[in-house]
Structure formats: C-alpha cells, structure tokens
C-alpha cells in the first residue's frame, strides 16, 4: 500500500521517472526543474542538469527559485555565458532531453507561451514569450513536457507556435530539418501522453492511479485518442514522496 499523495506530486514523480541516469537535460524552470532535481535524487545521480543561465551540471541542494538562482551557479561543474550555453551547448544537439513547461499545448505537441488569442498585435492575454524554448524544442535529442491538463491548456491548435513540436503531424520536423525528435512525452497531473508513432498526435498512454479516463478526456481540448494498451502509472513510492517532499521543504 502506498502513501497518500496529490495529483501534482504524482505528476512530478512521473516526470522525474522519465529521466534516465547519465542523461543530459536542459531544464526549464518550475515543474521541469522540480522533476529533474527529484530524478537526480531518486534514481539518476548522474543526470546532468543544464540551465539556460549558463549553469552546466548544476547540483542544487534545494529547488532553484529561478533559472538564475545562485544555488545553480554555486553547485555547477561550470558556469558559462548565456550566449555560450545556447551556441556551444544547446545548438549542436549535445543535450539528450529538453524539459519544458507550456501555457498552451496542441495535439501535435506545438507549444505556445506567447499570446492567447488570434491577433498577435492585440492579444487576449500577453504571455511571457519564448525564452529559450524554441531552440530547446528544436535541438535537444527529445523533449519532455510537463504541465497540468485542462481544456484551456490542451487545445486543438495553439494560438501561436512559440516552439515547434510536430507541426501538423509526423514528418514535419524532418521537412524543416529540425535535428531533435521533438516532444516524445507529455506528463500531466492526470496521466502521460505520447505522440502516435504514425501520426505524431498526442495519445493518452497512461493514466495515473485513480484517475478516470473520462476526466482525462474532458480535460483535453481536442478529441483525445487513447492507446489500445492504456496503462496505469505506478503510484509514487514512499521513497519518491519522501525525496520530493524533502526537496520542497528545503526550498520553502
């Protein structure tokens, strides 16, 4: 029997599990950073974390509050300039996984963090913008996304393509000459989605324990495809929960 846990905790644990030991990971702030740091503590001590502030191999003892937290610099193997981190480290495709959040995501894994609304010049909501994401999504070996699932966030088509996922389907990345494989996994508070091998449409492959399929369908703004082989995510172990909560406590 496992301990009690929240949907957000399940999300962080599931996201952390996706990161294998020895990988290098370009880490976005917020949920991706939490998951990546949990992974490093739980099962991937040799996970190399790279932050866009220039910190290579950061080993923070608490969750960084921002992408440029001093803790990242103090614990890094090397701190390089921001131009260097993008040009020498991200761009050549050295990094295995880009781990990103998103404000809006569509069924082909395209990401919007720019504007809500159809008119860029007169948006309904102005979001922060691209940051490092377009090139992270382009150049990393693959991309993992982590965000809470809701019809507002999971839309048929994003209002603005800030970062390219799979475009309008399988093959678009190759046509554009994008080196990385793009989004291969989306971790939410309800389950996991992966691009269909043939169409690249995001498909529900796992539900978290206790989540009804119908809830995941309703939380998706497109007609969600469900894998024939739908599985249930293993619940967080006590060890995972302890590590996650310790990490959050150390960061409060």
């Amino acid at each position, binding site marked *: 029997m496992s301990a009690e846990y929240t949907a957000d905790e399940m999300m962080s644990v599931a996201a952390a599990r996706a990161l294998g030991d020895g990988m290098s990971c370009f880490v976005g702030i917020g949920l991706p950073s939490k998951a990546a740091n949990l992974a490093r503590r739980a099962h991937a001590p040799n996970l190399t974390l790279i932050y866009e502030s220039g910190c290579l191999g950061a080993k923070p003892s608490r969750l960084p509050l921002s992408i*440029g937290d*001093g803790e990242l*610099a103090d614990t890094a193997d090397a701190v390089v300039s921001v131009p260097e981190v*993008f040009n020498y480290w991200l761009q050549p495709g050295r990094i295995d996984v880009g781990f990103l959040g998103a404000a809006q995501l569509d069924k082909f894994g395209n990401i919007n963090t720019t504007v809500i609304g159809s008119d*860029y010049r007169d948006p309904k909501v102005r*979001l922060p*913008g691209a940051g490092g994401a377009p*090139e992270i999504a382009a150049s990393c070996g693959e991309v993992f996304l982590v965000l809470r699932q809701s019809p507002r966030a999971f839309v048929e088509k994003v209002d603005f393509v800030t970062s390219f996922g799979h475009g309008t389907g399988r093959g678009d990345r190759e046509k*554009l000459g994008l080196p990385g494989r793009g989004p291969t996994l989306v971790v939410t508070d309800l389950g996991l989605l992966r691009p269909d091998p043939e169409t690249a449409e995001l498909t529900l492959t796992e539900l978290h324990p206790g989540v009804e399929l119908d809830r995941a369908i309703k939380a998706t703004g497109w007609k969600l495809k469900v894998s024939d082989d739908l599985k249930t995510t293993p619940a967080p172990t006590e060890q995972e929960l302890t590590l996650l909560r310790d990490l959050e406590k150390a960061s409060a």
Partner: protein
Amino acid sequence: MAELLSLEQAVARLVRDGDTVALEGFTHLIPVAAGQEIIRQRRRDLTLVRMTPDIVYDQLIGAGCARKLIFSWGGNPGVGSLHRFRDAVQHDWPVPLEIEEHSHAGMANRYVAGASGLPFAVLRGYTGTDLPAQTDTIKPITCPFTGERLTAVPALNPDVTIVHAQRADRSGNVQMWGITGVQKEAVLAAKRSLVTVEEVVDELEPRPGAVVLPAWVVTAVAEVPGGAKPSYAAGYYERDNAAYQAWDEVGRDREEFTKWLNDLTGVKA
C-alpha cells in the same frame, strides 16, 4: 577610461530621451537602482532592450519611459506575469508599447554580433515557429559552403548598456562573478556603458568564475551598494523573493502602481 560618477550623474549624462537602452542581468545582478533612476529622471521614448525584462522593466514601462521593448521573455520570475507590460501591450497604458520579440538564442546572438562589430549573427533558430512572421529582424540566410538554410538576426548595439557588478577598482576596471549572463556582450555592444557596483575597491583580487571588463571599455562606474535589490548579488546579498511576490500586487493595479511611482519619484498624490 571609466569615470567614477554618482548614479544620478551617470544616468543624467549617459541616458537620453529616445535612446536604445539595455539594462541586462539574468536573474542575478539586475541593475534595478539604475532603472529606477531612469524613472526618476523621467526619460521618455526609450527603446528598452533585455532578454528577460522583469519587474524593473515593468516599472519603466508603467512609468511611461518606453515606446518599444526588444526582448525574449518578459515575466516576474517565479511569480507570474508583468502586469504593467501586459497593460501597455494590451491597452496602451500609459503609452503604447511596440514590441520586437525574439527567442533567448536570438537575443544572445544579437548581442554577440553587436559586441563583435558584425552587422548580424547566424544561428539555428525559430524554425517552424510563428515568430518570424511577427518579427522583421529574423531572416533566412544560406551557408555559402553547404547551401543549408539558417537564420540571421541583426546586431544589437544599444546607445547605452547598464549592468550591475560586484566590484570595480578605482580605475574603473569591473569584476563580476556567478551567473554573468550576457552582460559582457551587452556592454561591448553598446556605444556607452554604465556599470553600477556593490563597492569600489583598491584592487580586484582574482576569483574563480570572474569576468573582468577593463576600464577602457566602460564609460562610467557608479558605486551603488544594494543596486541589484531585490535581485541578488553573489557574495553580497540574497534574492528578496518576497519583494517579487509583492510586486505582483502593486503591478496588477494601475492605482496601486501610480502610488508606488509617486513614492519613487517624490510626487505627492
């Protein structure tokens, strides 16, 4: 050779109405005091440049100093949106704000080109995104050897760049360490530059990870202890996270913001 000035003198001499001004800092060492001095001196029609405009840019925008923002990520880091920035973009308050939007990789390379005396930089960037359709300063370029298509962005050469550093010596040589972002490039790309520092010391002791800007590429240095608060200065003070949280409340509301602005500028309500 860099001149040692007070912050007030330095901003008065270096920042002019209509200038393109970059106040750079990547979470760490943000030149907040200098930004607020620009507000106090009521500069207008600035083109503000920064990769990560945060609360001091929200303040500059809310105070009506800017007519344009060139940026790649605008937010209150760890908190949420910049409400004054949103209000300017969405409702032209207090004045319309034109935007020129890039990615971090694009902005970083624009500064690199500026620092290198080149008119443009080449990167693998923006591919497949909607940014090139909205931003004139993103163009394709073809490799003359392989025929491959890549992306070009033009150099950024601000009229003034302002950064904050830990130390300078009395000749105006500047030393910063920790996360130093794109500050060296932003200073080297600019026509004029101001560095605010935590302290002026007799000698800059070499330190791991230190970046040194020689005095002969810096226009002015101003000693402004705490000049990066509420951001942090490694070796001096920590980030004041509560202040970032608190800004959300102030920035969210025009009236609250106006009160804050009047306090800053000494105007009685």
